């Protein structure tokens, strides 16, 4: 199948300077499993554009590194 890569604005951002190495809390809690730890930076990031803008990721982050924005199409 012919394919193209798709660039998407994702709603959840992580302040890498704050994000603690070894922590996985937001990744563990996201109902949609949309967050992951980046293999290189070792920081949390949104790996798929799947989000209910519900907030457990931000609510559980011990250092307030997570910001939940409203998904672009709804904003």
């Amino acid at each position, binding site marked *: 199948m012919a394919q193209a890569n798709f660039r998407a604005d994702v709603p959840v951002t992580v302040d890498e300077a704050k994000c603690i190495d070894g922590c996985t809390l937001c990744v563990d809690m996201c109902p949609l499993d949309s967050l992951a730890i980046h293999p290189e930076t070792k920081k949390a990031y949104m790996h798929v554009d799947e989000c*209910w803008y*519900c907030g457990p990721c931000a609510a559980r982050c011990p250092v307030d590194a997570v910001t939940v924005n409203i998904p672009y199409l*709804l904003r």
Partner: protein
Amino acid sequence: MEIPHVADRRHLECDVLVVGGGTAGTMAALTAARHGASVLIMEKAHVRHSGALAMGMDGVNNAVVPGKATPEDYVADITIANDGIINQRTIYQTATRGFEMVQRLESYGVKFEKDEHDEYAVRKVHRSGSYVLPMPEGKEVKKVLYRELRSRGVRAKVQMTNRVMPVRVLTENGRAVGAVGFDTRSGEFVTVAAGAVILAAGACGRLGLPASGYLYGTYENPTNAGDGYAMAYHAGAELSGIECFQINPLIKDYNGPACAYVANPFGGYTVNGEGNRFVDCDYWSGQMMAEVKREIDSSRGPIYLKLSHLPDATISEIEGILHTTERPTRGTFHAGRGTDYRERDIEMHISEIGLCSGHSSSGVWVDEHARTTVAGLYAAGDMACVPHNYMIGAFVYGDIAGEDAAAYAKGAARPELPEDQIAAAHELIYKPASNPDGPPQPQVEYKLRRFVNDYLQPPKTERHLSLGLEAFERMRTDIDQMGARTPHELMRCAEVTFIRDCAEMAARASMTRTESRWGLYHSRDDWPLQDDENWFCHLNLSKDSSSGEMRFDRRPVAPYIVPVPGFVRPDGVPDAAAPRAGELAAAWR
């Protein structure tokens, strides 16, 4: 990704398997464990923040608190809201056991609003009775339940597997004996043998496409893709009222509740574009939704939730609820649009269609013991047909299912699991991984759900519904070709199959009921009148065991056990006596 061989699997065993660790599922597990069963909760998310209560809830919509309302009032109210088509015995359970559930939740640490005399501060939103009980600290409810599941005593009896998603219930001789699924992170294949299975997988929230076009911008928690409906159907269970869709009035674009239940008691209400009220009762029903749609579509549209007339302090109080619990990003949304409740009223719209008995009445057919028509298979919560059951109903039915399933599992034989069904589920799960370059799930799902909008959104007609059916048949081919590269993508692909199954059920059920009923939920432009002579009955669907086709059966409405003032049963069936004490399963003690 590598596809595991069908024999290469993690095998688990338990007395009671609970599929979905949301509202109903956590309560089912707690009660089953209390009754001595070993319990396994399989949750595709993480139990701590999964389901509708991921961030808590701002109130109980349907508590019958002694001294404030009677079970009889509630049963009558819900009977009328459902145009009389209801098994009152199921509703009666929610009515009579809801208060003990409130007290049980309180004993776990959930707080409910009390007035200055320390009485429950229930409010009136329904047509006649007062059943809405605010939860000022409602954001903690799932935390409290999770803590209870991890508490000493319970912990040893309840296993939880997070990120593991069953896709099929296994049956042997017409009895539920387990389930089969996979780990959505590692891709591992998983089978479970169980004495009884409780499905508590929530609504079918990813049926219609929200107007925004964002697949996950649904009213319901989008993890609830109709998994439970599809699993029950393929296990041979009956489903009922599927044609009675769920449609809600929501904040436009944000697509979450505003919500009149919160704002009403403070003096907020719904108005049209001319600033006039147009509904006399803000209780969500098919009738109300028909009025909402009419108003939006008219020159008086759009509609708004009006708060701007309220004093600043009151608005701050409302914000304190709406912006911290249930859907706490409401505040972020309004800030982004520059909407302040003090200056501008909130534009409202109607949601995409879904299936949900928590709000409407589409679900798996259950009796007052949460039993489905398949032995050893239970359903509770939004996916079980107990109309307008909401959160307290999900808790009550989780409790009932947990107790009954624990007793059932005790005496149940543990046969070998059926390998043919396991192989079929393996194929369903991993097929997209064998075709990694096939169309990706987001495109396939978008197309499928756009067809749902095009052809199933009320008002419905035979012509539209048949075009929808054709589209859903065509989508089988798209789904066959769909490609996935990771276990996460496999999860989304399996969900697309559930959505397709639900779309087909919704189209066929809507075609079969040749009348209009339940306001907007089943409004048929080609059959505009309610036809009590032919259709005062439940419409149940199931998978025919010999042909494998979808079949429909009419079930008569059981005699009422509670008289409904002002409502004459069109079939003339006389009322029966209310259940005697002890006749229904005992409530939690």
